[in-house]
Each structure stands twice: as C-alpha cells, then as structure tokens.
C-alpha cells in the first residue's frame, strides 16, 4: 500500500503568491514605468506614469485577483455540491446566464441604469445566473441526482448558446459596439479606475462570505448527503445557500470581466492536491491561488503582443481546455 506523506502546502504560500502578483504585475505592461516617476505621483506632482500605474494597472490587477479568486472558490464549492470534478460557473452555464443578463442591461439603453456601485447590469447578471441556477436546482429536485454528463452537457451548451445569442443580438441592437462586446464575451479585464472594483464587491463579497462560511459543511457533503444529514448538517439549507452564494459571485465576475472559463475548475484541483481535502483550506487556498493565476494570465495577455491586448478568457480557455478534456477522458 502506498503510504507517502501527503503534501500540506500552507495557506501562507498562496497568500504570498497573491500579494506577489499584486506587487509585481502592475509594473508589467505595454508602457515601461520608471519607479521614480510612479513614486513622484504620490507627492505633489501628477505624472503620466503614476496615472497609468494607479488608475489602470493596479485596479486591473486587483480586479483580476478578485475575479480569479471568486471563480476558483465558487468552482471548489460547486464541485462538492454537484459531486462533479468539472463543475464551475462556466461549465454549468451559470456564467452564460449571467452574461445574457449583463448584455441585456448594456445593450438596451433604457436598462443602462446605475446608482453608485449598483447597476442594472449587476442586477440582470444576477437574475441570469439565478435563472440557470434555479433551472439546475429544479432538474435536480425533480429527477434526483442529474447525471454528471447530462449536467455538463447542458451547462456547456448554455454557455455556448448564450455567447452566440449575444453576438446575434449585438448585430440588431448596436453593431457599432460589436468589438467591445466581443472582447467582453471572451472575458476581458480592460478596466480603468476603481469603479469596477466596487461593482464587483457589492454582489461578490456577500457571495464569497456565504460560500466561505459553508466550507465545513462541504466536507460533510463530500461524504454523501445521508452521512452529512447523520452528522447534523442541514443539507437542503446548505444547497440553497450555495446556489445563492455561487449566483452572487458569478454575477459579480461576469459583470466586470465577462464569462471567464476554466480557472474555477482547475485551481481547486491544484489546491486539493497540494494542501489536502479539508475545504476550510481548499476554499481560501483556491481564492488566493485563483486570483494569482488569473492576474498572471492577464499579465501575459496584455504584454505578449503589446500594445494590443489578448482577452484573458482566451488565455484561460487555451490553457484550461486541454485540462478539462484530460479530466473528462480520465473519469
């Protein structure tokens, strides 16, 4: 019997990576920034380097860290809920649902409302995410456990259809905005200033808090619903709150960055392999590592063919797609 010592990578390591990404990545980009010029911006003089650094690079890296972290943490929770190693907001179609909602708010001028950090885009993205969540939940209730393959097939289909639907609707509604919508649909993080960070945090923070609070319950669910019930876990309540929490985090991510796939699926597996299966470690670990990974992917995306930027979603899909296929085939 194999009895090797299991790895126990500490959360501090992921935390260090997260902070390293925040410290290093803003210095990387199309324009080379001299540290002196950036530092000068903090004094009396406004410098162009300082503006780029503090108003473009830092919020963008921050948003990548938050989005990647939220996707990975949500993926870790959904993988337990659906007992499916390939589950995440994108493969379940939740991102697609949120994208349709967000698109509707952006494309129809009458719906383009905002009250500070609260926007109609968020609300409709949440409605779209909730719609898909409710659909999955309804199916699961009616037919017992939906088979893993059926669930994924349906989810990926929703994601693809929603993408095509948005493209199609763009031609009718606002063809001149095609390029910007296309970039958003591929998952992009071209933000300026901190408004999007707040836009993310309003639904994202409560969502993350809900899922994080349930980490211990997910350990019990991993042993099967009946065992969890026997231990005293209110399984139905955990399921309901997970749907709500995952809907909030997905809506937050899609609103600011479009549907980004595969980060949410792969990162939790990496953390489990490195740090064991206790979800009280896996969830925070996935948040920290997922953030660092997405920020790095975005860093690559905005430097390889600078000054042109590659949407980060295209990079995660190219890197993550093969891993998805590998897990799918190996099952």
């Amino acid at each position, binding site marked *: 019997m194999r*009895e090797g010592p*299991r790895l126990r990578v500490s959360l501090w390591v992921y935390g260090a990576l997260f902070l390293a990404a925040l410290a290093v990545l803003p210095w990387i980009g199309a324009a080379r920034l001299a540290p002196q010029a950036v530092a000068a911006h903090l004094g009396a003089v406004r410098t162009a380097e300082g503006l780029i650094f503090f108003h473009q690079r830092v919020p963008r890296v921050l948003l990548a860290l938050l989005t990647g972290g939220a996707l990975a943490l949500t993926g870790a929770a959904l993988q337990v809920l659906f007992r499916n190693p390939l589950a995440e907001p994108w493969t379940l179609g939740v991102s697609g649902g949120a994208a349709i909602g967000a698109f509707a708010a952006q494309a129809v001028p009458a719906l383009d409302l905002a009250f500070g950090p609260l926007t109609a885009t968020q609300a409709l993205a949440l409605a779209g995410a909730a719609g898909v969540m409710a659909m999955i939940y309804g199916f699961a209730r009616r037919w017992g456990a939906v088979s893993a393959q059926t669930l994924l097939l349906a989810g990926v289909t929703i994601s693809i259809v929603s993408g095509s639907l948005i493209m199609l609707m763009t031609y009718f509604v606002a063809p001149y905005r095609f390029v910007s919508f296309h970039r958003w649909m591929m998952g992009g993080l071209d933000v300026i200033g901190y408004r999007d960070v707040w836009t993310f945090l309003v639904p994202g923070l409560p969502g993350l808090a809900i899922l994080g609070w349930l980490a*211990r319950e997910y350990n*019990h669910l991993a042993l*099967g619903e*009946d065992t969890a019930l*026997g*231990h*005293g876990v209110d399984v139905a309540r955990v399921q309901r709150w997970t749907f709500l929490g995952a809907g909030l985090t997905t809506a937050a991510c899609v609103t600011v960055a479009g549907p980004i796939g595969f980060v949410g699926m792969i990162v939790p597996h990496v953390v489990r392999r490195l740090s064991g299966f206790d979800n009280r470690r896996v969830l925070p670990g996935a948040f920290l590592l997922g953030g660092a990974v997405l920020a790095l992917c975005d860093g690559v995306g905005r430097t390889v063919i600078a000054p042109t930027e590659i949407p980060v979603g295209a990079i995660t899909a190219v890197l993550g797609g093969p891993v998805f296929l590998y897990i799918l085939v190996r099952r």
Partner: protein
Amino acid sequence: MSEARLRLDGVGFAYTDGPWRLSVDGLAFGVERMVCIVGPNGSGKSTLLRLAAGILAPREGSVTLDGRPLAGLGRRAIARRLGFLPQETPALFDYSVEEVAGMGRYAHLRGAGVMTAADRRAVARALDAVDMTGLRERPLSHLSGGERRRALIASVLAQEPELLLLDEPTGALDMHHAAAVMRLLSDVGGSGPAVVLVTHDVNLAALFGDRLLLLAEGRVAADGAAADVVRPGIMRRAYGEDVLVRTHPESGGPLIVPRRRVPAGPEAAHA
C-alpha cells in the same frame, strides 16, 4: 446510559413511484442495548431506519424523540442525540481516518467550528473504540473494506449520541470482519449509545441482538428475542422458503441454515 426513547406511531410511508408501502405502529427504540432489524430484500429495513433517523419524513403518523416530533427538531439537535450511518458513504475526497472521525463532532461545535480539547478527546476515544488509532492518518482509499467501515463508525461514535442507527454496518464484509464489527457494536451498546442496526444476516442478528425486528413486505412480521423470532414457521412466512433452525453451539441461540433442496409441497410452490 441511554435515555433517548425513539417512537414510531402509526407511521405510513410510500415512495412516489409504485404501490410499495411501509406501515409500522407502536415501535420503540432505545430500551434494548442492541436491536437488529432483519428481513428479506425490499421488506423496508432501510426505509424504516431512515424514517427513525428523520432522513425521511413519514407520510402519516409520527416519529418522536422523547415525545417531541423529529420533524420539529433541527438536524443538528437530532444529531446530538441520534447517530445515523447510511449503508453507503461515497467519499468524493480522500479524507484521512482522523478527519472523517472528527466530522462526527459537527453537531457539538459552535461558531466557526473549532474543536476544543474535549472534542479532540471524544475523537480519540472513538478511534480507540474501533481500534483505528494506529491508522488515524491513513487516507480512506488506503483502507480495506472493514477498516473503512470502522473509520465511519468512529465518526458516529465521536458524535456521542444516545442512540445509534446503522444501515447494514456489516454489508459487503467477509464473515470474520462482519462478526468483528458486530462484536465492536455490541461492546459499544454495553457502555455507550444503544444500537439499532439493519442487517440481512439473520445469524449475526440472532447472535448479537437483544431484540430482533423482522420486517416483511413493509410490515413487522415478528418482534422480540431471537428465540421468539427465528423460528421455522416465521422465517418461512417472511422469506417464502423453508430453512432449518438449529442451535448455536456456543450461545445456545437459534441459527438458520438454508436447505439444499426445496421440499415439494404447497408451502414451497410459491417460493
């Protein structure tokens, strides 16, 4: 030690699909140290246990714990007094024995769920009781079937309930492993929680159970001491086939053995 009295009164239950139905009335658990629920496949053993554990809600009638309906108690409040171990535990992740045993403390933890020294002692006692202390760091995938069962029993023992409900704790185990688990549970029943378990093995039930509850087609066919339940006529009616009843050479209790040939006759014809 056990004070919990679990009662099922006028309980009726049916799954949505099909005509099958379970009806039991006036059943009480928590008096005897070990109750074994036996009966042929499809007789309702697991359903009865799941109703008793509050996992299933009865269509009619009531399941009460010391007079209070289970339906009105929260899962956590139930779990502090009733332990339940299902037949199958499909583990999604490869937890260690100690992690699994520790999960049994869930209902006792408050707030963020940090274990106190008392919780850790309960886990250590549970691991000791199932003789898994030496294997506590081993992941589930590296355990034999019997060891895995014992690890899961440790989790419900760490829960320190007053009454322990187990569905086929010896299922899929070799004869000697099954007997070891039964011996362990009867030791548990002597000092800790009273045990109610489902088993398809009438001989193990007769050997270890203080009381046997025989189910057939969703109804109680016999209920009492092994000597009163394991009788040729009762067994034939429940299982639809003649069996030979002998005496266990050590315990003096009943022991059943199947017949090699089904005897010709009106009784055997429909079997």
